[in-house]
C-alpha cells in the first residue's frame, strides 16, 4: 500500500499517511464532516451516523469516522444523497430530543442545533408523544437530562479512556437507553467535568454554569489555571466581570481540552463573599478597613523607620504570584530593603536538580514530552491526584503510542492500571527500589523521570546518576505543587539564590528562621499562609500581608492589603516543567489590586527606584536578566508555552532539603484557594468516594 495515500475529497486532492481516517483527511483540506460521536483521540464508535459520506464505487454511504483512507478513493461529503441521509439522521435524533432549546444551557453552542439549522430538519413527521425522563443531578457539578441525550458515548469514552475512571456506563435499551453512573445514582469520579464539555447536546450540564448565561453574552479570557503546577490553559467565560465557566474548548495551550475539577469548577473562590476588598489596619487590636493611601503610608513609614535603625526584615513570597511579582518582590527586598531574608514555601528540589544536570542540554522534559516519550518513570508521587495533567499525558501516551510507565510509589496509584511495572517503596526509600527496574528501563529509547517531594537533596543527585547510568536519553521533571512554585524559585525568591539561581554574597534567613527569629522587626508576606499551623516567635513584629482572604496569617497582620487573584491579573507563570505561559485578566473584583501594583505603590511611597511596575516592563527585565527566560514574545503573546532552562552550570549553594515540604493537596483541595471555593467543598461533601487510585 502506498504511503502517503492520495485520495480525492470533494474534488480536492489530499495526501495522508496510511491508516488515516477519512474524517481526519477531510479536515486537512478544510472540509468539515459533521459528527456527534467521533472525538479525536478516543476510540471509534460510529454511533451517530452523521458523518456518512459517499465513496465512489461503494454501493452504500460509509461512516467517515471509521473508514480508513485508501489509495485513489473519491469521496463526496455534501452530495445530495449524503445531505438527504444526514437530514434523515437528524430527524431520527430529534424524535425524542425535546425542543427545549430556550431553557437548555447548550443553546447557541449546541452541535445538534447547528446541524439542524444546516440541514433544515426542523420539522418532524413524528406525531407520537416524546419519551420523557426527568433530569437528574449526579453530583454538585454534573446534571444529566436523559431526554436530551443522543447516546453518542463521548462522555463514557473520555471518562473511561481519557482519565481511566470509568464512572459512566449505559443502562436500559432502545428508546429507554441512557447514560448512568457506574455507582448508582451518583458519580464516584474525579469530577473533572470533561463529560459536560464533550457533550454535543445539552444532556450533561454544569452545576456552576447552569442557567447563568448564553455563549454570546460572555467575554472569554484564556488564562492559566492557578490551582496546581501543571499550567493548564483555562478559558474563563466572564459575564459582567464575574467568571461563570471555565473550560478549554478551543484546545489552545499545553493541555488540549483536559482540565481537572479545580480548573473547571474551582474558579469560584474569585467571587467568594469572603474576599478582602479594602485594606485593613490593626487599631486597638482589631483589623479595621482603611483607605489605600493610609495603609500604604503606614507600611512605608514603618519600613523606612526599621530600615533607618538597621532592623531586620523578613519577606515571604508567593507560590501563586506571577513571575513578574516574584521578581519585583525579590528586587524590592534585595535593593529596597537591603536584605536577603526572602523565602517561599518550597515544594520540590528544583535547585539541586538543575545543579545535578549542570552541563547537560535538553535534560528537562516539557508537558508534551510526556506524550511522546517512549517510557516514563514516576518516583514518589501520585500523579493523578496531584498532577492531573501530567497523569493524563502519560495515559494518553500509553493509549496512543503504547509507551511504558514505571511507578515507584508509597501506596497504590492510578498509574498502576496501565503501568509496565509498579513498585511499592516507602517515602525516602524509592531510590533503592529503582535498581530492580534498571534492566527494564534500559530497553526503551528514551525516558522521562518525574519525581516528587520525597526525592530531595542528595537523593536527586543519586537519581540523576541513576538516569545517567542507563545509557539512554533521560529527561527530568521535578514535581512542584503550586501554580508558580517553579517561577518563584527561578525568580530568586530564596535566601541564598538570586534570579537565575545565582549565588548571593550573604545568604539571608530562610522561612523557618524568619518565623522563629526573636528579633525579626518586620514580616512581609505576599500571597502565602506561613502562620497556618505555627505562631510567629516575635510577637512584637510588624506583619504586612497581601492576601485574597483573611487567612490565619492575615489575621495576625498589622496591615492587610487585598490582593487580586491570578485570574484578575496579567503576567507570566512557569509551570512544573519550566514552561512560561501568559496570564490574561478576566474577571474584576472591586477593591483588590494585583500584588505587583501594591508593591509598586509601596516602592513609590518609600521613594525607592525599582523601575516601572507594569507586568510588561518587569517581564522585559526578566527576559534581559534571567537566563532561559529570553523566550520568544510571540509564543507567549499568542498563549503558547515557552520552555526555559534558567541555569546550566553549578549552583554553588547547598539547598536545604528539610525546607521542602509537599503541599499535601489532593485532587480536590488547593491550599488557601480551595478552602474558599464553594464548588470544590460541595463536591467533597457529596456522597461517594471520589478519587480512586
Amino acid at each position, binding site marked *: 500500500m502506498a504511503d502517503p495515500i492520495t485520495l480525492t475529497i470533494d474534488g480536492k486532492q489530499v495526501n495522508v499517511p496510511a491508516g488515516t481516517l477519512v474524517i481526519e483527511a477531510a479536515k486537512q483540506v478544510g472540509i468539515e464532516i459533521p459528527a456527534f460521536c467521533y472525538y479525536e483521540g478516543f476510540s471509534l464508535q460510529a454511533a451517530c451516523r452523521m458523518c456518512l459520506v459517499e465513496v465512489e464505487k461503494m454501493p452504500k454511504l460509509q461512516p467517515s469516522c471509521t473508514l480508513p483512507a485508501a489509495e485513489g478513493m473519491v469521496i463526496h461529503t455534501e452530495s445530495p444523497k449524503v445531505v438527504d441521509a444526514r437530514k434523515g439522521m437528524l430527524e431520527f435524533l430529534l424524535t425524542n430530543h425535546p425542543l427545549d*432549546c*430556550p*431553557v437548555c444551557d447548550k443553546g447557541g453552542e449546541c452541535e445538534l442545533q447547528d446541524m439542524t439549522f444546516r440541514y433544515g430538519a426542523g420539522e418532524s413527521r413524528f406525531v407520537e408523544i416524546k*419519551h420523557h425522563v*426527568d433530569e437528574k443531578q449526579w453530583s454538585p457539578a454534573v446534571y444529566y437530562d436523559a431526554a436530551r441525550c443522543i447516546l453518542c458515548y463521548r462522555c463514557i469514552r473520555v471518562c473511561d479512556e481519557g482519565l481511566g475512571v470509568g464512572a459512566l456506563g449505559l443502562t436500559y435499551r432502545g428508546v*429507554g437507553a441512557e447514560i448512568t453512573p457506574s455507582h448508582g445514582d451518583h458519580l464516584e469520579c474525579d469530577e473533572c467535568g470533561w463529560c459536560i464539555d464533550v457533550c454535543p447536546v445539552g444532556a450533561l450540564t454544569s452545576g456552576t454554569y447552569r442557567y447563568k448565561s*448564553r455563549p*454570546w*453574552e460572555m467575554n472569554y479570557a484564556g488564562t492559566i489555571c492557578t490551582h496546581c503546577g501543571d499550567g493548564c490553559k483555562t478559558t474563563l467565560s466572564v459575564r459582567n466581570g464575574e467568571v461563570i465557566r471555565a473550560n478549554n474548548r478551543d484546545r489552545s495551550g499545553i493541555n488540549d481540552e483536559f482540565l481537572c475539577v479545580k480548573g473547571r469548577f474551582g474558579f469560584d473562590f474569585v467571587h467568594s463573599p469572603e474576599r478582602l476588598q479594602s485594606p485593613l489596619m490593626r487599631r486597638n487590636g482589631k483589623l479595621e478597613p482603611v483607605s489605600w493611601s493610609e495603609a500604604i503610608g503606614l507600611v512605608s513609614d514603618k519600613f523606612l523607620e526599621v530600615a533607618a535603625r538597621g532592623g531586620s526584615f523578613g519577606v515571604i513570597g508567593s507560590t501563586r504570584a506571577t513571575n513578574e511579582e516574584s521578581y519585583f518582590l525579590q528586587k524590592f527586598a534585595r535593593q529596597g530593603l537591603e536584605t536577603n531574608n526572602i523565602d517561599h514555601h518550597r515544594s520540590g528540589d528544583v535547585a539541586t536538580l538543575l545543579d545535578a544536570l549542570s552541563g547537560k542540554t535538553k535534560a528537562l522534559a516539557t508537558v508534551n514530552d510526556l506524550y511522546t516519550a517512549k517510557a516514563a518513570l514516576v518516583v514518589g508521587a501520585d500523579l493523578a491526584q496531584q498532577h492531573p495533567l501530567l497523569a493524563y499525558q502519560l495515559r494518553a501516551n500509553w493509549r496512543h503510542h503504547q509507551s511504558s510507565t514505571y511507578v515507584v510509589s508509597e501506596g497504590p496509584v492510578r498509574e498502576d492500571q496501565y503501568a509496565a511495572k509498579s513498585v511499592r517503596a516507602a517515602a525516602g526509600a524509592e531510590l533503592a527500589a529503582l535498581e530492580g527496574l534498571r534492566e527494564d528501563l534500559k530497553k526503551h529509547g528514551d525516558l522521562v523521570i518525574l519525581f516528587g517531594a520525597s526525592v530531595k537533596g542528595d537523593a536527586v543527585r543519586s537519581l540523576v546518576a541513576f538516569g545517567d547510568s542507563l545509557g539512554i536519553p533521560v529527561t527530568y521533571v521535578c514535581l512542584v505543587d503550586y501554580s508558580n512554585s517553579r517561577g518563584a524559585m527561578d525568580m530568586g525568591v530564596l535566601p541564598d539564590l538570586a534570579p537565575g539561581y545565582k549565588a548571593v554574597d550573604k545568604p539571608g534567613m530562610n522561612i523557618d528562621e524568619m518565623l522563629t527569629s526573636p528579633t525579626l522587626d518586620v514580616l512581609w508576606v505576599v500571597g502565602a499562609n506561613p502562620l497556618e499551623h505555627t505562631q510567629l516567635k516575635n510577637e512584637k513584629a510588624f506583619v504586612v500581608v497581601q492576601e485574597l482572604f483573611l487567612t490565619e496569617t492575615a489575621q495576625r497582620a498589622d496591615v492587610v492589603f487585598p490582593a487580586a487573584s491570578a485570574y484578575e491579573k496579567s503576567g507570566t507563570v512557569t509551570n512544573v516543567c519550566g514552561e512560561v505561559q501568559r496570564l490574561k485578566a478576566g474577571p474584576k473584583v472591586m477593591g483588590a489590586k494585583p500584588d505587583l501594583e501594591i508593591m509598586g505603590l509601596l516602592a513609590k511611597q518609600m521613594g525607592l527606584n525599582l523601575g516601572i511596575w507594569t507586568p510588561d516592563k518587569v517581564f522585559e527585565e526578566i527576559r534581559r536578566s534571567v537566563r532561559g527566560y529570553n523566550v520568544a514574545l510571540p509564543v507567549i503573546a499568542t498563549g503558547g508555552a515557552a520552555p526555559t532552562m534558567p541555569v546550566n552550570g553549578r549552583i554553588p549553594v547547598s539547598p536545604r532539603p528539610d525546607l521542602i515540604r509537599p503541599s499535601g493537596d489532593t485532587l480536590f483541595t488547593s491550599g488557601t484557594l480551595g478552602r474558599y471555593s464553594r464548588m470544590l467543598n460541595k463536591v467533597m461533601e457529596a456522597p461517594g468516594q471520589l478519587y480512586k487510585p
Partner: protein
Amino acid sequence: MGIENLWESMPKINEILSGAAAIAKGMTVTIKEMMNPVITDDYPDAPPVFQERYRGLHVLQRDENGLEKCVACFLCSAACPVQCIYIEAADNTDQLRISGGERYASVYNIDYSRCIFCGYCVEACPTDAITHGHGFELASFNTSTLIYRKEKLLAPLPEGTTGALKLDHPVAVGDAGH
C-alpha cells in the same frame, strides 16, 4: 372728502355676494364636520385610544395559572439591537416555582433610555412572554428611573389565580419511561 370718493370706496354688489358665498361654503364644512364623529383624542383630559398592534411599554405575560411565561432564554436580549434587555436566570424549585418552565428570570430589566420599540424582542420570544403593551408615558427628568425592573413589567395576576402551579390532573413525571 367728496361724495364721489365715498361712492368709489363702497363695495360692489357682486363682491358682497361672493363674500357671503365664501362664508356659507366655509360654514358648510364646519357644520358638516360638527355632524361627523370626533377623530382626535382628548389626551391628556381623556385616555388615548391605541391601535391593537401599537408597540408601547413591554408587558411580561403570565400563563393561565398566573405563572410567568418567561423562561429566561436570553433570546430577547440577543435580538435586541440596542442591547437594552438584561436578564439573570435562576432555577425553579418545588418550593419556589415562578415560571412554567425549568427556569425563570430572577432579574429582567429593560432600559427604556435605550429601547427603540422595534419589537424584535417580541418576535424572538419562544414562549410569547414579552409583548408590547400600550403604555407610553415614560418621560422622566432622571434617566436612572428609565430602567424598568421585572416587577414593573409583569402583567397583573389573572382573576382567581395566585401564581402557584395548578394541575387539573395528577402527573407523575418520574414514572415515564422504564
